[in-house]
């Protein structure tokens, strides 16, 4: 099933079987409902259909609002009652070059600049209204280009040329997105180039049905949009597991030896593997974890990274499995070691038999068909859009470092007999404070991607979190934890709401990389302290089971809460009466800065 949603797409099947595929995918359980407004500058029915398929395949069930034909501007700025009532979490502005208002031909540069400002201002007004007033995240297409250029190449040179003008606007849109974290650009300029303008636009479909993008290209467009939306909800993949022989280098190290490997700039084949390693390293630098899974002798496999032309080093990998076990077992072990769900994994192997068994045994792992031509590896991985980031946060750039530090911590733990003594030796420092402006992006990201240590798995948009922050009856907390090996960043969140004399905990989550570090106790202590200050006499906790959060089903029991209600659907309600005699639970995090 998921194969169908992998690049390259089977367009014939997608175009005609969409209803049956939709029915099949809608039968899944545990789908995340997302309210999505599609505001179109052209017909959007086809886009909506395909976007629904790609989102369903990613575990997201979209609830759509569609603007009337080409009323994207009016329905936001003027006649907004229907949109407001719909309360979108995400608004997608599907505009293309046909919606741009161009300066007249042969205008002088002042006229062109003023037209660009006015066009930018028109879109900016839509974004501001959607973000600040309607309270949603905006995905804005940048501009594709027309198929024709009456000026030939001068069209890209003269300031009044179509291409010149659109490229200027695209640069302005990008600058705006850098300033506004809740404005995301859907880069259709790139996508149209990949598809080719002749296939991207189809004049017959435009004239007959006002489709600005051809139906076949709309499939590719929907795929890219779904990747951005997956990113918004923390569903982008995070781990790239790589085979070695004929994947990261040409040849079989066990047979050919290090010197016999094809890698480096000497041969076209070696250069292809070098380029693929460089691509993997780029992924790692922006926060994707790399791991090795190879059927090999463990020592011999590692020797490959002593090749003089290797780009990747052993230290680039957060996990390294070289043995003779079945690969799906090794990948499951990696997931366990890294404390990450298998649904955040991608497995890359040149061997179709290995891909087949991993795909069959671990259906949530993405296993792209890489073929066996190393010159196409980058394309076949890149086009899948598995790792789509919404923005690159400072946390993302440090993530690989966090995991390497964890490996060091684990080594140290092995040398301590007493776990408490180990925790003390870490010299942990924490900051616990209410949600802060600087961290709202990271906080939103965490609420949308934490699955395991998450009591209610409530997802929030940044707008909803801003509203909670401003609510005087709410208690918000974030915790940041560092130790002698490094800073873990913001790793735990809680949201409580005062209801009469109860503080009800609507959200409590923690990153699994700081599991069993005493941080859950510190969070409880802080919640209690703040509840008491507000005059509350009890903490009320709720557990809502999902496919992934069983590890916290007894969280409140372990903290001494009493069970109040056990619902038939598995939800449980808990209560902890409070008084000033409360004994603090956290004993190993000694240096705490409270905000």
């Amino acid at each position, binding site marked *: 099933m998921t194969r169908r949603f992998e690049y390259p797409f089977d*367009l*014939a099947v997608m*175009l*005609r*079987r*969409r*209803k*049956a595929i939709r*029915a099949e995918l809608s039968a899944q359980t545990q789908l995340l409902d997302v309210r999505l407004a599609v505001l179109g500058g052209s017909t959007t*029915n*086809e886009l909506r*259909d395909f976007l629904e398929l790609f989102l369903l395949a990613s575990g997201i069930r979209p609830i759509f609002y569609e603007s009337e034909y080409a009323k994207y501007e009016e329905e936001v700025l003027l006649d907004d009652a229907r949109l407001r009532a719909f309360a979108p979490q995400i608004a997608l502005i599907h505009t293309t070059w046909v919606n741009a208002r161009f300066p007249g031909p042969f205008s002088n540069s002042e006229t062109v600049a003023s037209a660009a400002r006015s066009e930018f201002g028109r879109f900016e007004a839509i974004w501001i209204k959607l973000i600040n007033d309607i309270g949603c995240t905006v995905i804005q297409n940048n501009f594709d280009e027309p198929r024709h250029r009456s000026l030939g190449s001068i069209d890209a040179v003269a300031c009044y040329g179509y291409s010149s003008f659109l490229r200027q606007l695209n640069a302005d849109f990008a600058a705006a997105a850098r300033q506004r974290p809740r404005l995301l650009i859907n880069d259709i300029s790139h996508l149209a180039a990949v598809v080719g303008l002749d296939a991207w636009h189809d*004049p*017959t*479909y435009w*004239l*007959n*049905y006002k*489709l600005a993008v*051809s*139906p*076949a290209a709309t499939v590719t467009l929907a795929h890219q949009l779904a990747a951005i939306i997956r990113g918004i909800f923390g569903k982008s993949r995070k781990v790239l597991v790589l085979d070695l022989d004929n994947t990261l280098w040409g040849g079989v190290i066990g047979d050919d030896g290090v010197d016999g490997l094809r890698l480096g700039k000497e041969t076209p084949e070696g250069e292809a593997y070098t380029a693929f390693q460089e691509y993997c390293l780029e992924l790692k630098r922006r926060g994707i974890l790399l791991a090795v899974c190879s059927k090999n002798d463990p020592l011999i496999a590692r020797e490959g990274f002593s090749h003089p032309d290797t780009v990747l080093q052993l230290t680039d990998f957060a996990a390294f499995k070289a043995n003779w076990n079945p690969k799906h077992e090794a990948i499951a072990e990696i997931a366990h070691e890294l404390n990450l769900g298998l649904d955040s994994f991608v497995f890359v192997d040149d061997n179709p038999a290995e891909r087949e068994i991993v795909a069959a045994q671990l259906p949530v792992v993405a296993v792209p068909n890489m073929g066996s031509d190393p010159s196409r590896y980058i394309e076949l991985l890149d086009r899948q859009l598995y790792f789509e980031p919404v923005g690159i946060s400072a946390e993302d750039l440090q993530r690989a470092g966090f995991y390497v530090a964890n490996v060091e911590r684990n080594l140290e733990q092995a040398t301590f007999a007493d776990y408490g003594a180990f925790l003390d030796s870490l010299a942990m420092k924490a900051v616990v404070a209410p949600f802060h402006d600087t961290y709202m992006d990271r906080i939103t990201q965490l609420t949308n991607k934490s699955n395991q240590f998450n009591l209610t798995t409530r997802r929030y948009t940044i707008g909803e979190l801003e509203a909670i922050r401003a609510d005087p009856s709410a208690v918000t907390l974030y915790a940041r934890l560092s130790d002698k090996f490094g800073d873990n960043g913001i790793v735990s969140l809680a949201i409580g709401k005062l209801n009469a004399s109860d503080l009800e905990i609507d959200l409590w989550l923690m990153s699994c990389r700081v599991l069993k570090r005493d941080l859950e106790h510190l969070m409880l202590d802080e919640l209690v302290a703040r509840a008491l200050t507000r005059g509350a006499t009890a903490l009320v906790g709720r557990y809502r089971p999902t496919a992934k959060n069983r590890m916290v089903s007894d969280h409140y029991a372990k903290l001494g809460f009493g069970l109040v209600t056990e619902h038939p659907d598995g939800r449980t309600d808990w209560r902890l009466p409070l008084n000033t005699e409360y004994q603090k639970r956290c004993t190993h995090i000694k240096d705490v800065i409270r905000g």
Partner: protein
Amino acid sequence: MDEILARLQPIFRDVLDDPSLVVTAESSARTIEQWDSLAHISIVSAIEQEFKVRFALGELETLNNVGEMIGLMEKKLRG
């Protein structure tokens, strides 16, 4: 005629999501209830993809039924 109709049959069933639908040369948007203007776009794009043909602007509008569409397609495929 029959060969093209046999290949069109599953396309119509898939697009209109009706596994028991029977399309004949006499079928048209008037006789098939689900064949509305939105389904029309899907049908046309699926046929173009499947047969690797292109319908020119205005060509489809002159046709009265599936039989006439097949006639047009035969001309294109021979083309």
